[in-house]
């Protein structure tokens, strides 16, 4: 385990101890989703306080992404309630939920492939464009001013993610890691209060992963965000999350600080199977994580 990870975890746990009474940005209650007879998520309760960096982990197929899709309105929940900043949002159209302040990224990257890097980010400003179709067609002064402002702000977000030199590149031509960063930059440009990241480190090598985790930490502090992060690689979340919720087969099986999760038998069972709980492999697992 690289030493950097350990230090970051220490910083994380401090944040949790001071943040117990913060208002929940996201709260779900009894969130349930059936696909036909299959229960993808059952009774999902979570509370994400303001400013938290909260991890949602679990083996493949545990229902993590389904939770994201329900929170962002892409799926209709079968049952339950979702509150964002104290306001119920279940049943709202996805674009309304984004405009309220929840932005997300996708597990399989969904950038706008044929648009430039700059345009990918500028799209996020559309709900706040501040001019009408007629301003655009007639090229009014308001159009010019807002376009310049939007572009400058979008370029700022590109700079945060080290993409400023690539603004005129076609997005699909970027290497994988940069596409992931572009997707996060685009989500940030939507100026959310809550950022949902769906396996941001998927497909990245360890070096890229560490850099990304540093960046996520930085972004959370810089833009005063609350972040909920899905990941199935244990070591990634253990490094940066202050609080972790573990899912398996659609249900929450554990919650706690990374240290608590690491030694939780049900979690180990879910990840490695029942037999591994006994004996030496438990110890190896904990070390690896």
């Amino acid at each position, binding site marked *: 385990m690289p030493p950097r990870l350990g230090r970051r975890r220490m910083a994380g746990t401090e944040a949790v101890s001071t943040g117990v009474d913060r208002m929940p940005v996201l709260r779900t209650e009894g969130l349930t989703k059936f696909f036909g007879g299959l229960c993808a998520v059952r009774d999902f309760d979570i509370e994400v306080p303001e400013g938290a960096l909260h991890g949602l982990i679990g083996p493949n197929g545990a229902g993590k992404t389904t939770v994201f899709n329900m929170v*962002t*309105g*892409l799926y209709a929940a079968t049952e339950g309630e979702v509150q964002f900043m104290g306001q119920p949002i279940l049943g709202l*159209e*996805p*674009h309304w939920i*984004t*405009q309220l302040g929840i*932005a*997300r990224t*996708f597990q399989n990257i*969904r*950038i*706008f*492939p*044929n*648009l*430039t890097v*700059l*345009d990918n980010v*500028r*799209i*996020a*400003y*559309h*709900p*706040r*464009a*501040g*001019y009408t*179709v007629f*301003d*655009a*067609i007639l*090229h009014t002064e308001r*159009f010019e001013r*807002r*376009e310049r*402002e*939007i*572009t*400058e*702000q979008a*370029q*700022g*977000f*590109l*700079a*945060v993610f080290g993409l*400023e*030199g690539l*603004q*005129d590149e076609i997005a699909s031509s970027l290497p994988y890691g940069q596409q992931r960063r572009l997707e996060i930059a*685009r*989500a940030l440009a*939507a*100026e959310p209060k809550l950022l949902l990241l769906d396996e941001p480190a998927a497909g990245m090598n360890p070096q890229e992963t560490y850099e990304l985790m540093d960046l996520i930490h930085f972004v959370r502090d*810089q*833009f*005063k965000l609350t972040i909920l992060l899905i990941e199935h690689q244990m070591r990634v979340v253990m490094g940066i999350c202050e609080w972790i919720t573990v899912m398996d087969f659609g249900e929450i099986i554990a919650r706690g600080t990374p240290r608590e999760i690491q030694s939780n038998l049900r979690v180990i069972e879910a990840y490695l199977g029942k037999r591994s709980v006994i004996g030496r492999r438990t110890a190896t697992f904990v070390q690896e994580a």
Partner: protein
Amino acid sequence: MGEHWKWIVGVVVFFVVVQLLISFRALTTYWATILQKACIMAIVSLGLNLIYGFNGQFSLGQWGFYAIGAYAAADITYRWKQGDMAGLAVVLGALLLGVVFLVFRSRGTVQRIGIGILGSTAVGWVVHWVVTGSASPWSYLVDVCAVVTYLPQSVSAQVVLLAALFFGATAAAAVSYLLGLRLLKMGGDYFGIATLGFTMVVKVLADNADSVFPEMKGARGMVGTPQLASWFWTFLFLMVTVVVMRNLLQSSTGRAIISVRESEVAAKAMGIDTARYKTLAFVIGSLFAGLAGGLYAHRYPTLHPSAFHFVKSFDPLIIVVFGGLGSITGTVVASFAWAISLEGLRLLPRGMELWRYVIYPLILLLVMLLRPQGLFGGAELGFLRRRTWPRRDVAPQAGTAQDGGD
């Protein structure tokens, strides 16, 4: 505007040269008609490119809206020529409805102008009531339109043409709005088939239009529409369409329209109301089709329903794909290439004319095999090219990112 002066000069020179050639009869009527046909097809196809190429909704309904625009516009000028002001009165009524809408939806100067127009209309109506003793708003509108007859013939004809074109385009847009509300939910191939059905329905309606509007003469074809769409108007409206498309697509609204094509889910996740932008693109695209239909009706002496057969609805599709989906330049170039080559192939040596039905499909096949993305792909030329911005690498501070969001 400044950096584009070369293109503006080029376009004006092209227009003037063609106009002079037509005026001095150096260009036969036949070839002048082909150039106008190219302009008209370019307008329809640009509309389709907005729907299919930029918004990603596969539509075969463009030809139906073209027909609606043609018949709606033709009816206005036809009636005017017969001394019947009813058509113009309908246009005026539609305009006033638009002003009412504007008054409710806008603020500031625009709203004040709108209220002024509505106010003076109301005053005029009262005066009309007192003078003629008729309180009917309809007879008021008809009498207002009769003012056109006091203008010199050449001026009034152009005014009536503009009113008719406006009406044709609006009628097509209005129908597309109602249709789009219902059909755009389906998406994909289903939308394509449904719009194809729409085009067929419009053709059948045109065949039987005489049972409601006798002057349209149904399947016998409508004749007697004044031929007012000159090279000036067709070319001007093509240029207007190109500029409107460009400005629209290079704005935030345009990015929203394109984002729907790129990834609907991602667009939603970016806060874009995808249903709204699908409808918007569909309505604007149909508006262009209606406008082109109006121009067509005033360029060809006979308006026959067979011209609106659904098989012909593949022409704009061919042009859009041939020129490149998502390229304004490509569509305009392909429209001219289409019109000139298809008609130009008629000039093959005597006895060989029928070979154009071999050569034309072969050209299509070869282009699609060798260049499946179309002539221009998604690229643009000159004035239409995407605006580039100087690079800038200052990261936003926590506060400033929120400031601009009003």
